[in-house]
């Protein structure tokens, strides 16, 4: 059988990959995708913990389900904001969106 910590390591790796993407990609949409990866990593954690530690209580799965909802809402709003900035600046490169500073 696969031990719990295998899942946790996969989740950690996915989280780190997502973090890297959020920090290093220039395109805002790519950053949104990276953040989705990070949320997904948390979800793997939740479900794995639920399965191995407390499978008789439903709360882990429910938590994961709510993360889906939040991820969907976040993606919708985030992409809308990106499109909005694209309309006013003709760019989605995050580095170039730096009118507000200091």
């Amino acid at each position, binding site marked *: 059988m696969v031990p719990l*910590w295998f899942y946790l390591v996969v989740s950690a790796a996915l989280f780190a990959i997502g973090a890297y993407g959020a920090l290093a990609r220039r395109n805002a949409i790519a950053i949104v995708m990276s953040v989705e990866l990070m949320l997904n990593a948390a979800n793997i954690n939740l479900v794995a913990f639920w399965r191995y530690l407390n499978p008789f209580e439903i709360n882990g799965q429910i938590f994961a389900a709510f993360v889906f909802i*939040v991820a969907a809402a976040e993606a919708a709003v985030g992409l809308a904001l990106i*499109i909005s900035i694209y309309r006013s600046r003709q760019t989605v490169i995050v580095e170039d969106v730096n009118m507000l500073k200091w």
Partner: protein
Amino acid sequence: MEITWQTIAFAAFAVMTLGGGLMVVISRNLWHSALFLMLSLFGTSGLFVLLVAPFLAAVQVLVYIGAIAILVLFAIMLTRRMMGLEETQNTQWPAAAAVALVLFLILFVTVSPLVDEQWFKDIFGGDEKDSLGQRISRLNADLPVDTDERDENGELKVKPNDQLNFVTVEAIGEALVTRDGFVLPFELASILLTAALIGAIVVAREDEA
């Protein structure tokens, strides 16, 4: 560790998830990134199946791949002038990579029982007084349904045939609408989705003129 179909499936899905994720962040073509995102999400869905969470696996496919990834694709098409960028990584990517690596190492050290191996302690030092034993047992935990724990009546707590479907969709549905379950966050989630809907429309709507 015994090689079973489960371990093989796990390895496959893990590779799919991580490889897909990696390609999302390093692929030069944004379109490819989005497709790899789908792959990665599909891999996660597979992991959910292995974890006996079929409902979540289905939702993962429906919501993540069916909705979010498609949304991303739409966004990419709407801003398609930005697709063919030569440089996809910004100048701080080495620092970002270092951060991600350190983050992974910290998480790895924290969640993996390898820390308790004697060779690890020999290299990095470790404290004897911390009772890591419990953590090892938890992290190495196999499915609790394999135990033959019995309740006070001498019955097995988990019936053998419950093993793979002790949580049904029905249980989830019930929890979401029971007063002493998760009805409050459930209702709040509906409001959250409404807000996101209104918000996305307000922000992204084309001008009428």
